[in-house]
């Protein structure tokens, strides 16, 4: 219900920030776009980030009445096909000077050439695929660790915390899932006992489960999202598979334990996102007060992403080129981590904290920070 309400709320105020922001008295402020899966099956992952960004804009506008910033929401449902026309629209509308997003790797990959051509800077709170920063795109930045780091942390977790010997790898064939499973596969080497690829919208997993059983796996690592992972885990448990289950940030979604029910108990997800109470400043408290719910996945990162722009507006930057240069040289403590981008657009690896969360009932309970040894 909470999720549905959040989705409705997001859909309801979709265009609220859209108009009336151009007529500011002072020579300050501007308009940014934020895009991502605000409705659709994976909205649960993205809504906290959207709320974090909205909170940042609200706080900024309250504190700086003479420097009004508006943020317009564009719902892509996390789908690259829907994100592309939106990107063209935003790029052509010169009143937009920057963009927060994409929230998923697929939609980011599809739209970053468009934003780059338009000279607009992108700051993503949650798109983690390694390849996004490997192609030399000048527009794309992210305030989150990438899957190279997250995958390495997962390998660390599998080897040293769960001490698993036979790992079964599954991905969903999408940009994000394939990317992170590749990293884990390389890191684990000989302890990989088997693997399978599922497809999006698949609902029954008999063949996958048989393979897991034949491999006698003691841990299943799944790269993908809730819609496939929840029924897969549920059916595997029903069929008597007792192997541990490890997912990544794509499953740090309240819908996952809800969909999988009891089967999700003790499943672990890794996430390059901080537990709410570890975030800096008064963020967690403010978020709780504003939305009456604890910030979930990437709430702090959404807040930070918005603040990168807001600081720029405050410093008087108001063209696309100015903001791009501003973000490139940004150097400041955020609530989720210290934010300073390297030339590829990634944040400093040493500032990224990867946490493991254990599911208990329908809650994600912070388990530990996974330290990288290398």
């Amino acid at each position, binding site marked *: 219900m909470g*999720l*549905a309400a959040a*989705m409705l709320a997001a859909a309801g105020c979709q265009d609220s920030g859209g108009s009336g922001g151009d007529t500011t008295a002072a020579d300050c402020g501007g308009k940014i776009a934020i895009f991502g899966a605000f*409705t*659709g*099956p*994976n*909205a*649960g992952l993205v809504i906290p980030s959207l709320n974090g960004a909205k909170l940042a804009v609200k706080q900024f506008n309250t504190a700086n009445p003479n420097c009004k910033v508006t943020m317009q929401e564009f719902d892509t449902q996390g789908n690259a096909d829907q994100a592309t026309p939106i990107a063209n629209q935003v790029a052509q509308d010169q009143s937009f000077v920057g963009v927060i997003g994409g929230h998923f790797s697929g939609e980011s990959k599809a739209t970053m050439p468009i934003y780059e051509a338009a000279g607009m800077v992108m700051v993503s709170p949650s798109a983690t695929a390694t390849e996004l920063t490997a192609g030399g795109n000048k527009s794309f930045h992210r305030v989150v660790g990438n899957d190279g780091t997250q995958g390495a942390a997962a390998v660390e977790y599998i080897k040293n915390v769960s001490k698993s010997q036979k790992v079964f790898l599954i991905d969903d*064939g999408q940009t994000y899932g394939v990317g992170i499973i590749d990293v884990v596969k390389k890191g684990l080497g000989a302890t990989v006992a088997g*693997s*399978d*690829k*599922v*497809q999006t*919208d*698949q*609902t*029954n*997993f*008999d*063949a*996958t489960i*048989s*393979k897991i059983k*034949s491999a006698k796996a003691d841990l299943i690592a799944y790269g993908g999202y*809730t*819609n496939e992972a*929840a*029924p897969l885990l*549920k*059916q595997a448990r*029903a*069929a*008597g598979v007792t192997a541990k289950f490890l997912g990544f940030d794509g499953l740090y979604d309240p*819908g996952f334990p*809800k*969909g*999988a*029910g*009891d089967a999700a108990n003790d499943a672990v997800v890794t996430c390059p996102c901080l537990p709410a109470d570890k975030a800096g400043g008064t963020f967690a408290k403010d978020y709780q007060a504003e939305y009456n719910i604890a910030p979930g996945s990437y709430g702090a990162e959404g807040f930070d992403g918005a603040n990168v722009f807001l600081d720029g507006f405050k410093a008087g930057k108001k063209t696309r080129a100015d903001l791009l240069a501003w973000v490139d040289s940004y150097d400041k403590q955020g609530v989720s981590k210290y934010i300073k981008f390297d030339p590829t657009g990634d944040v400093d690896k040493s500032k990224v904290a990867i946490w493991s969360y254990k599911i208990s009932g329908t809650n994600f309970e912070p388990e530990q920070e996974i330290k990288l040894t290398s």
Partner: protein
Amino acid sequence: MNFDELFGHLGQHTVDGLAKGSIYALVALGYTLVYGVLKLINFAHSEVFMVGTFAVVGTWTLLGATNNPGIGMMLVFLAAGLVAGALASGATAVAVERIAYKRLRSMNAPPLAFLITAIGLSLVLSEAFGVWRGRLVVGMPTIVPQKVVFSIGNTSVSNTQLLTIIAAILMMIGLDVFINRTRYGRGVRAVAQNPDTAALMGVNKDRVIMLIFLLGGLLAGAAALLYAVRYGNTRFNVGFVLGLKAFTAAVLGGIGNLRGALVGGLVLGVIEVWAATLTSSNWEDVAAFVVLVLVLLFRPTGLLGESLGRARA
């Protein structure tokens, strides 16, 4: 190509495939019944199934079902789920016929018009559930905990697999008897063979058409219950892929042929599981359609041929 896995556990993969195919078969019967009589593909049938799954989960929630109930409550939940699923799916199927087809039929619309209204109604139903129940997978309580009933060698058959397969075969036999041995069934066959002559002989064509939609819906509702028991989840677009597969199964077995739907469903399920085992799960659809094309190249009317009404009429 993982031949060791496939041949090492061939029996297990075949049983998995038969259980999966049984659900295809029950949904396929709905396509085949309507096609046999109206020469029309009812593309909204996938949503008839989807509505059934939501009716099952809704009923279980209302009754306060929890995981692993005792045997008594289990039977209550199964019966309630069957009634709710069959009623909801049956009512949806009849409504689909009333809304999307009846008026078009009375106006002698070209066949393409039926196809478009069917696809349109299917989208409306699925999107309506997407808005109403959310787009995320909906979990259900585990009413029947899986247990291995018997094992032969390294092949073990679980209670839910056995239930699914036996239920599908029984319902198929029941339908076959109904169509071939009863007065109503004779009417269905008459309309399938020649609607105008049947009407002249006093068969109420509209009633027969409603009957076949209702039968298809009831079977889809039963399939929805079996699906809920076996897979424990549903979502607004659950019908899309499953409907496509069931339609494929109907064509594979010979569309319009009731026994063909069963054979087609079972064969398709087994092929999919074998293919997924041999390669990876995202290849199962490719394999299924390659086999379909190959079969149709040599037997254009499917494995058993088209026959509703034609055989022993």
